[in-house]
Each structure stands twice: as C-alpha cells, then as structure tokens.
C-alpha cells in the first residue's frame, strides 16, 4: 500500500517541481481524512497541486472559484421543478464530488463559507430540510491569498480548526525555477500524470491509518507537546483536544507515508507545524504563529522527559 502512496507523491512531484515536502503533506492530509488549506500568493502552484492530486488519485474532481456574490445554493445545489414529472428534482451542486478545490475561499461571504465548512465537517449537506450524504472519500483543498485582503472575509479561528493542515508552497528553488522557465508548463504535463490510486484504495488507506501503532513513549510525547502549548506561555490559547487528535491523525498518516507501521516522533515533528500553525496565536506577535516559530519551539520539548 505505501508504495502506492509513494508513487502518488512521485507523480505529483513531476508537475509541481521542487515541492516534494508540500506534496507529501498534502497526501498525508488526504490519507488522514483531513482537509487542506493552502495559503499562498497567486501563481505558486496551488491549483496545479490540486489538479495533479485529483488526477493521480482518480477521484471525482471539481473546482469552485469562490466569489463575493456566491450563495450557499451555488455550492450545495437546489431543487428545481421538473415539468415533465411534475415533481421537484434536486440538482446537485459542485460539492457533490470526491475532491473539491475551493479556490480563494476567503472571497465569498461567511454564509457560503460556513456552508462549505459544515459540509467538510459533517460530510453531508442539508438542503430543503433533507440531509444528503456526500460521496466517500471526500477531500477538500481550499486556497486563500493571505496578502490582498481588500474585500475578503478572513476565516474565523473556529473555522480554521476544520482544516487538518495549513501549508504554503512558497517560491520554487533555483533548479525548479529554471526548469519552469525552460518552458515546461506544468499544467500541460498534468495530462501525462498516471493515475496510481483508486478511490477504493484511498478508503482502505484511510482505514489503515488508525492501525499505525503508537507506543506509550510517543503518546507521552504527544501529550507533552499539547500540554506545552497550554502552559508554555508562548501562545494565547493552548491546543484543543480536537487539535491534539488532528496532530495524532496527521502523524500516523505521515508514518504510513514513510512506510512504517509505528509512530515515531519524527512523524510528529514533520506534521506539527502545518497542524498547529493555524490553530495557535503567538503571544509575542499577536497573530498566527509561523511555521518556523513552531519548529523552533518543538525542538525545545524533550522527546523523552518533561
């Protein structure tokens, strides 16, 4: 199984040059049954990553560009009167898919945002008083541009919590940049990507995540990390139990990606920054913590003893 994941990562990395770590995180997020928030400037490959992932997994992929005049029904669907049958017929919105790319999520109104986020959490939508299950697996990648904030509705902290991870891709390194400049347009290559996974495979993998063994030592370490967020005084609030669960889930997914059947602190450390950074507010800067801040803080927490 892990070989398939490795293959998936390799395939995506072919189009998203030099971003192996981000790709791995995205895959881990998907395997951990979480949703991914990508925060970046335009043109850094957010959409490419989503498209490539969709293709490599063979999931039913849809993309929604969020705008300020968008209504919840545009996302979830609506009932239409069918003259022929004389009945209302439900028209499924774009959310009825296995893999949704929600582009620029902070452009739409809070009402629409919360419709999406509710669907992400519940894995179902309620329209006309009837709840409808979303297909399985269901994976959302949302993107937002953190810098041009005019006319946007930033996601509140409680909504951010719904995303398992938040990553940013950043600029490519010199070699990757060169390759891009030499004319190999990644989007054109997407068609070359091979599908290495089936939706059913993904479901099995998601099941297998919980089989990853976590020893007492590593559980202690996880708890120490969580406790430290609450007591170290570096953060405004500590991590919630849901946040702690997210860390464990993501770590296990990463362990699986690494081809191990047990959880090691390496896995925890690999995912802790993307899992925690949008859930913690730094006391010194007042804003959300940066990845670097968290990585430095994690180094101060002993892996064995308090």
């Amino acid at each position, binding site marked *: 199984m892990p070989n398939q994941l490795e293959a998936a990562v390799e395939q995506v990395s072919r189009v998203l040059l030099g971003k192996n770590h981000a790709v791995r995180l995205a895959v881990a997020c998907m395997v951990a049954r979480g949703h991914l928030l990508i925060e970046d400037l335009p043109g850094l490959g957010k959409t490419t990553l989503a498209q490539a992932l969709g293709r490599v997994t063979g999931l039913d992929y849809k993309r929604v560009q969020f705008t300020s005049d968008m209504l919840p029904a545009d996302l979830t669907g609506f009932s239409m009167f069918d003259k022929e049958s004389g009945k209302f017929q439900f028209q499924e919105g774009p959310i009825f898919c296995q893999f949704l790319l929600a582009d620029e999520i902070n452009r739409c109104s809070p009402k629409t945002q919360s419709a999406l986020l509710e669907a992400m959490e519940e894995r179902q939508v309620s329209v006309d008083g009837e709840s409808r299950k979303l297909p399985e697996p269901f994976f959302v990648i949302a993107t937002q541009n953190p810098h041009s904030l005019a006319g946007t509705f930033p996601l509140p902290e409680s909504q951010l919590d719904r995303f398992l991870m938040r990553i940013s891709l950043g600029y490519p390194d010199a070699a990757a940049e060169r390759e891009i400049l030499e004319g190999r347009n990644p989007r054109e290559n997407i068609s070359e990507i091979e599908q290495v996974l089936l939706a059913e495979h993904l479901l099995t993998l998601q099941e297998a995540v919980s089989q990853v063994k976590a020893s007492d030592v590593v559980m202690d370490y996880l708890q120490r990390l969580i406790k430290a967020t609450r007591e170290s005084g570096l953060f405004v609030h500590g991590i919630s139990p849901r946040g702690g669960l997210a860390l464990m889930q993501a770590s296990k997914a990463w362990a699986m990606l690494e081809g191990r*059947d047990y959880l*090691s602190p390496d896995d925890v450390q690999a995912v802790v920054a993307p899992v925690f950074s949008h859930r913690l507010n730094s006391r010194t800067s007042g804003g959300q913590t940066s990845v670097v801040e968290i990585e430095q803080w994690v180094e101060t927490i002993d892996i064995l003893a308090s």
Partner: protein
Amino acid sequence: MVNQKFTSSPKTEKLQLSRLQQGWLVLALSVTCLPIWFYVPIWVAIFCLVPISWRLRVLWKGGAQLSRKVTAGLAVLASAFVLWQWYPPIGLEPMSTLLIICCALKFLEMRVIREARTVLYLCYFIAAIQLIYEQTVFHFLLAVLSIILTLTAQNMAERDPWQQYSFKSFSLFPLKSVGWIALVSIPLTIIIFLFAPRVPSFWVVPVSEDQAVSGISDTMSPGSIGELARSSKLAFRVGFEDEVPPRRSLYWRALVLSDYDGQAWTNRENFMTIQDGGRTHFPGSNRPAPEWLDEILYEGQPLEDDVYQEPTSQHWLFALAAPTSQENGLGMTKGLRLVSRQPITQRVKYSVTSYPDYRMTGDVLDYRDRYRNLHLPDEFNPRTRELAESWASQGLSPDQLVSRLFSLFRSEHTYTLNPGAFGTDSIDEFMFDRTRGFCEHFAQATVFLLRAAGVPARIVSGYQGGELNADGNYLMVYQYDAHAWAEYWVEGRGWVHADPTTAVSPERIEMGAREILKEDPDFLADDVFSLARMQDINWLNWLRLRMDSVNYLWVSWILGYDNEQQFDLWQGLFGDLSIKRLMIILSVLAVLIMGAIGFNLWWISEERKRPRTQRQFDQFRSELLKAGVDLEPGFTPSRLAEQSRGQNPNHDSRIDALCQLFEQHFYAGVDNRQKINALLKKKS
C-alpha cells in the same frame, strides 16, 4: 482575528498579579503583622491598615493604582514619624517599625510578581522579628502560621502568570501542599535543633530601658512594692526537683537594702563584685573564695530548683536562702543572694541549690557592716526613735524587741494595699497616725525601730510565695507577689529573718497576695483583663493554668535547651565523649544526614521512576553533547544520528545503530535492551 485583550504590552501583562494571588498576599501580610502591632506605636498600625484596606478596596471594587508620587510621599512621611518618635532611630522598635512600613508601602504599590516577592520576603522577616519581643509557645505558633500563610501566598504568586486566577477558582489546595512541605521539614528541624551547636547570639538587641525594666527595683520607698501589685506580669517560674516547699517558706530573695537616707532604702554598691558588704563569689573564677563563705554553714537537706526568669535588665536573680549555684557568670553574695555578671535582658534559666536549714556562725559583724546597718539620718521620725529608745532602755534582747513590735502591729495596725501617700516622717505617720500599710511600710518600720534601738537591721526585698501549677510541679511567681521583709543581727546567730507581715496579716503569707488583695480596687489595676483576676471562674482558671504549663514546658525544653542540656543528651545517647569519639559521631551523623537527604532527593525524583532505557538514552545524548554535537531536547533518534554524522568527527556505525535501536525500542515496541546494553558498553 486576534483577541484584543492580549495585544496590550506583553511585558506588564506577563507579570500582573491576579486577584486571588493578591488576596492570599493580604491574608499573609495581615496575619504576619498582627502580633508586632502590640510592640510598636499605634500610628504604625494605622499606617499599615491604610495600604491593606486600599488593596482590599481595589480587590473588591477594582480601581486605579496609586501613583508613585503618593507612595513616595507616604514613605517620606513615615520616615519623619519614625524620627519624631525615636531620635536617634537606633534599637529594635524603630527598626522593626521601619521594616513594617516598608513592607506596607511596597504592598501598596505592588503590581507585579517581582514586587510581590519583596513583600513576601519582608513577611518572613517580620514573622521572625516578633519572636525577638516574645518567645512564648503562642507567639511561636503564630510565627509558624504566618510563615505557612506566606509560603502559600508565595506558592500562589509564583504560579503560572498566564492563568487568570479568580476568586471562583479559590481552593485550599496550595495551603495543603505548603502544609505538606512544612510537615516534611519537621524531622530535619528537630535534628538540627537537637544536634547543631548552640551558638550564643553574636549581638544583643538593644531593648529600650523603659520597656524592659520591670519588677522590683534597687530603691524601695513607701508605696513602691504596692505599685507592683497593680501588675499580673510573670516575674519568673520555678521548677522543683522534688516536692514544692510550703508557701510560708518561699521567700525569694532579690535585694538586700541596707542604705537609708530617711526616705528610701537602697543598695549603694554599684559593682557586682562587691555586694552586701562582701566580695561576690563567682564559682569557677580563679580568685580564692571570700572569707564570708566560711561563716555560712550550708547544712541540712538541700533544695534543688530551676528558675526561668523573665528579662528585667537588672543583675539580681531570685533564690531561696541560702543559695548556691554552679552556673557560669552567676555569683553568690554575702547577703545570701544570687547576682549575674550580665544584666538579664533575655529570659534565662539557672539552677539553684538552696540550703533552707543553713546556719551562720555570726561571730562578728565587721565595723563597716555594723555602721551601715545601724545608720539612721538624725532628722526624721522622732517619735519612732523615742519609742525604740524607751524599749531599748528596758534592756530587751533583739528577739524580744521584735516580738514586742510585732504584737504592737498585730493589735493596732492593718494590712492594706493602698494606705495613701506619706509625708517626710513617713514611719512616724505610719506607726502612730495611720496605722495602715503594705509590706514595705511594716518592713521599714521594723528595720528603723531596730536600728534606733541599736540592733543592726536591713530590708530584704524580693517575692513571696507563688502559684503552684500542679501540671508541671512548678511555681508561677507574678509581680503582685513582690514582698519586702526585715533581717536583724544577733550575735552568735547571724542575720535573723523577721517578716512583720506574718504578724499583721498571716493570710498574706499562708494564702498568697492574690487571695488577700483581690477585693482591693488597686490590685491588678494595670491589667484589667488579666486572667489572674478571674481565678474564681473555674474553667477560666483551668485554662490559664494549662496555658501556663504549656508555656513552662516550652520555656524549659525548647527555649531552655542549652549547651549543657545538649551535652547531657549526647552523653545519654553516646556515652562518654572524647574528642576523637565526638568527631567520629559527628562525621557519621553528617554522612547519615547527607545520605538521607540524597536518598530522599533520589527517591522523589522523576528520574527514578523512568525506565532504564530512557536514562540510557539521556546518557547517550549527553555523550553526543560531549563529543561536540549540537543537540536540542526535541531531537529524535534519527535526527541525532544525522546531526552526529555532520558534526561528530568520531561518528561511527555504532551511533547509527544505537539511534536505530533506541527508536525501535521506544516506538516500535521491540525488546532490544540487551543489544542496547551491549552497544553502550562497547564504548566504555
């Protein structure tokens, strides 16, 4: 997006004290300062109450902090007050007052933990200071309570400053944990108390004179002993080895007053080395024993007692006739008294062996003594003088003179605490006009009459009787037990005891001063609420006696624990003490104590509870650290290997293997302890 509450300056925010923490501080400070208010002027109490109530107001209602200008102004004001009260400001009172005021003002301006710490440390100091004033068991318990409360306040104040403690989150838990700490420290305290050398204090706290001088003085004039009956303060306690002698034989001698100027009786001998007309005998000094010692025959059954004397700032001690003592610095005088080389500024304990059946050879009264004890100024009391001369002319012996005088007293005089003020011919006035008086009036009339009749006589002052506390087989002697009596010289018998009070009011001697005087309005007038006034209320009296016996135990076992008792204890435990043996015992004790502390530290350490492999991993990490590898506590085994590969010149496959083994052991549940042990041994 960000909670606005936390965007204020993080520095001050970080250290702000919560209301619950402040509340604990208020409690600790109030209890700690409570006892010391009895020893400083009233304005200090007011000065302290203001900050505490201000702080309470802020706690309850909220409100602005006082500006620093106000506190600075208050500090200047307080210093001025101190200078006004005591100039120069030297001594215990001004210093403790300054300390309390500092503490109160610091408390007033306190907002952050650093300032709270100052207040807390001052609290510890104040709790100790009150023990300089009083050392009763109750004061000690109060000090313990203060320290426990202060510890709790500190425990609270040093807690996580991020947590907002409100009154809702109040719990006694910190008190519990501090109580536990205190409990654990008790054995060590006992060991230190029992075995640490008793070092005498390096300095003496100057006690202001008006406060310390209490009890009888070396000048007796009519009414001066009556003054003491107004006070129920304790003068001293006496513990007896055997049965307590009957009350009528308990004459505690303090002073012998031979010099009379017509108004007052004094002892003009200023030096402790010459007292009562002879050289004072200090046992243990290398001077030969004075000659007068041969004239006293210490005979009969000796009486052993331990006196626990309250401070008087004077040199004289209290003992039954004829006292002997082997204590260092204590001297026996020719007048059968004990004196101390140093004034008694703290509570002292001394052992006395008295010989109640002593005899004096009484061969000669040397001419200086004779002159001194016969001298009367010419101009005063002509009528008494006339009476004495008429009696003397009848050829009466000294004993007959005394018995005749006593029968006169018995028939015509009354014993009263407050006979009123007397004029210059006070003895005439007492003898013939008023015929009422207190013990000093009778005593001085007796001595005057005897001297006028040509018999050498002198006044002895001290205390008579005492209240028996059956709980501890000891006597409590109060100021109102002060007494004066007479002694006259008989050829061949020496100085003979004569107490005129036995003639006029035998109840005073048989039942004690309190029984006789309790109806008198002046009795204990200075201690209106004294428990001694309420001895007729049974349960109160019971309580008073119990409280005093607890204090007696405290004084005799804790405060009175001195080098001598320590030595006795050591001897009891270890037999005879040679220097070599002492050194061995001390080293063994030191090793045992250190061992116990070390064992305890190890026993409670987290380290002990961790599995061996975890400790091995720690060792492994420190080994890498020594090899020059930069490590962080959060580095995983694989990261350690990577780091070592980059930075450790001695990196080898062993380190890689160990890292892998550790990872498998901790996280994959592989039992590879033997391999780890083997690889770790390989290095060493």
